């Protein structure tokens, strides 16, 4: 098995396979590239350290929730509680970090809350065989209510140095995102990560082949929760405070980013790079249309057209083939 020959074969196979996985999202990558170039031309300040930092900071929380949603959709699940979980993460960060727990304690609290909520949701969905859409819709009310209980009105505080570190004039958010993507690649190499696609694409077949289907799906929910509260922590640092309803829009935007990125609703289809590109496009559109001087009404129409375009072009190609 472990002869040098198969190792080189493995390497030779890696890139062609990765290229094949890009097929569905090539047009999206092209659109994102066009927008990036347009943004750079319209706003040359993008290429300064602080310009790049501010831009990646606007994108970062959306990138995290897009990943959080994509993991679930890859296993055939979905979450309508992502926005509420982001809000909860933000209020926990804003209420603990300035207190006796400190920043480290606050980070732990945020991480444990995310993992716990995710694992509990995953357990209910997977073991009790309840529809994810119903469980997470109910969950969104509970989690959103908990956020309002912790912080009934916007308030709290995050230490200024943490805000400046994560959301100051350095590209720390971008570095963090690169790290998280690297961790995702590592996770895909673990047994649970390997089971993720199999559990989503063909759960029965995977189960019969000895794949830990339930474990993979519950782990996906836990990771998704962690990414969501992590996005909340970042939003709290970015804004310097907590707001119990700040995450509301992230639920729909996370689904939009994932779908835009070619992740299928039925599980097992799509790639994380697609979801990230989808979230980048959503974030870029806001800034580019501002610099193009679009009026708000024109922005509504243009956004819709771009999204339909990016999703429909690969479908046209498929039909033609």
């Amino acid at each position, binding site marked *: 098995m472990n002869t040098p020959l198969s190792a080189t074969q493995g390497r030779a196979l890696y890139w062609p396979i990765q290229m094949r996985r890009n097929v569905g999202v090539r047009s999206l990558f092209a659109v994102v590239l066009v927008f990036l170039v347009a943004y750079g031309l319209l706003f040359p300040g993008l290429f300064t350290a602080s310009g790049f930092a501010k831009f990646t900071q606007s994108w970062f929380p959306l990138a995290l929730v897009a990943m959080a949603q994509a993991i679930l959709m890859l296993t055939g699940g979905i979450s309508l509680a992502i926005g509420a979980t982001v809000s909860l993460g933000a209020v926990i960060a804003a209420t603990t970090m300035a207190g006796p727990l400190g920043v480290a304690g606050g980070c732990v609290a945020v991480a444990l809350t995310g993992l716990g909520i995710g694992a509990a949701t995953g357990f209910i969905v997977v073991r009790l065989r309840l529809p994810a859409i119903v469980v997470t819709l109910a969950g969104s009310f509970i989690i959103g209510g908990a956020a309002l209980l912790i912080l009934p009105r916007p308030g709290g505080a995050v230490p200024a140095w943490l805000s400046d570190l994560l*959301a100051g004039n350095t590209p720390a958010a971008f570095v963090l995102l690169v790290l998280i993507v690297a961790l995702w690649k590592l996770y895909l190499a673990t047994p649970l990560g390997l089971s993720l696609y199999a559990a989503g694409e063909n759960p029965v077949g995977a189960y019969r082949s000895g794949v830990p289907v339930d474990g993979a799906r519950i782990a996906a929910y836990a990771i998704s929760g962690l990414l969501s509260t992590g996005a909340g922590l970042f939003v709290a640092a970015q804004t310097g405070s907590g707001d119990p*309803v700040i995450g509301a829009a992230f639920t729909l935007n996370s689904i939009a980013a994932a779908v835009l990125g070619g992740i299928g609703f039925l599980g097992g289809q799509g790639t994380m790079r697609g979801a990230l590109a989808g979230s980048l496009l959503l974030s870029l559109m806001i800034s580019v249309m501002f610099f193009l001087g679009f009026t708000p009404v024109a922005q509504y129409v243009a956004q819709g057209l771009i999204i339909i375009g990016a999703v429909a072009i690969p479908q046209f190609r498929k039909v033609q083939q």
Partner: protein
Amino acid sequence: MMKSSFFASASALCLGLVLSLGAGSQANAAANCIKGDRKAPYTIGWANIYSVPTWMKQTQGTIEAEVETLKKQGLVDKLVVTDAQGDANVQIQQIQSMIDSNVDAIILIAGSSTAPARVLADACAKGIAIINFDSLVDTDKVTAKVNTDSSQWGDQAAKFLIDAIGGKGKILILNGPAGVSVSDDRRKGADAELKAHPDVTVLAETNTPYNVAPAQEAVTSLLFANPEIDGILSLGGALSAGAVLALDKQGREQVPITGENARQFLELWKEKGLKSWATMQPNWLGAFAAYTAVQALEGKDVPAFIKIPLPVIDNSNIDEYLARAKDFPADGYIFSPYDEELFKKLLAQK
């Protein structure tokens, strides 16, 4: 006497803000955030949180009209408008884009009372004039904040109603949505008057969106339960319209009611011959914000907090408002007239 206490509290507030500004060791008279390096004509950015409701469209209308006037005076050359579609995160990104494109002034209604604080501090550090009106942000890194007083709204409404029912009787209270600061503050403002009159019994309270249909539904069910109602303390114009319609549909006699400048309510008021009182969050706060931003950029001293006195509509002046009704959308708000003289007076108050 009420007026004098209002002025006393307003001036105390302004004094406090002026003192806190003074601590920032600003020797010259320039307003907060202003560095004096920006020259006319200016570009104004209007960072709207949500453009769809009629109230917002009317507010934007006053801003556009004011900008046209300022353009003729050569003070403004461009108005940039964004719409965050209700998402506070998007509003932050759009304010960042306004900073990146180097606008001279930003006027905003905030989508969150805390979230935009850091991005506004960045804008302030770049010498951009920031005027925050209507929904305010908890920060002093802006040039000025402009608003009416929601608590005073509740207080004045309660005073009128208790007076109208002769200091005793059974009333309903209609509130806006729960957990929203404006709705909370208006209700809290009414508390003192209600406590001072123990003969006034509150039969029930409602929490509905500021829309006619849900308010009408809520009041209709309360009418079934309460055969005797002497007055309705409504803390929103559409809520009042809903209550009047509910009484009308049930064939009940109209009772004294408070309200707001919603056109539908004012028309019902006249049609049914009500005894009523209304105030408003004037849409021209938007125009005033644009005007104030330019004044600050021109080097004028601008108070850090500008409290807009609540205009009052009652049976003595409702005809003046209804005479102008055709100039306003059917589901819109008939705001009090405004001109540059009024703006100058508001800016001069200390």
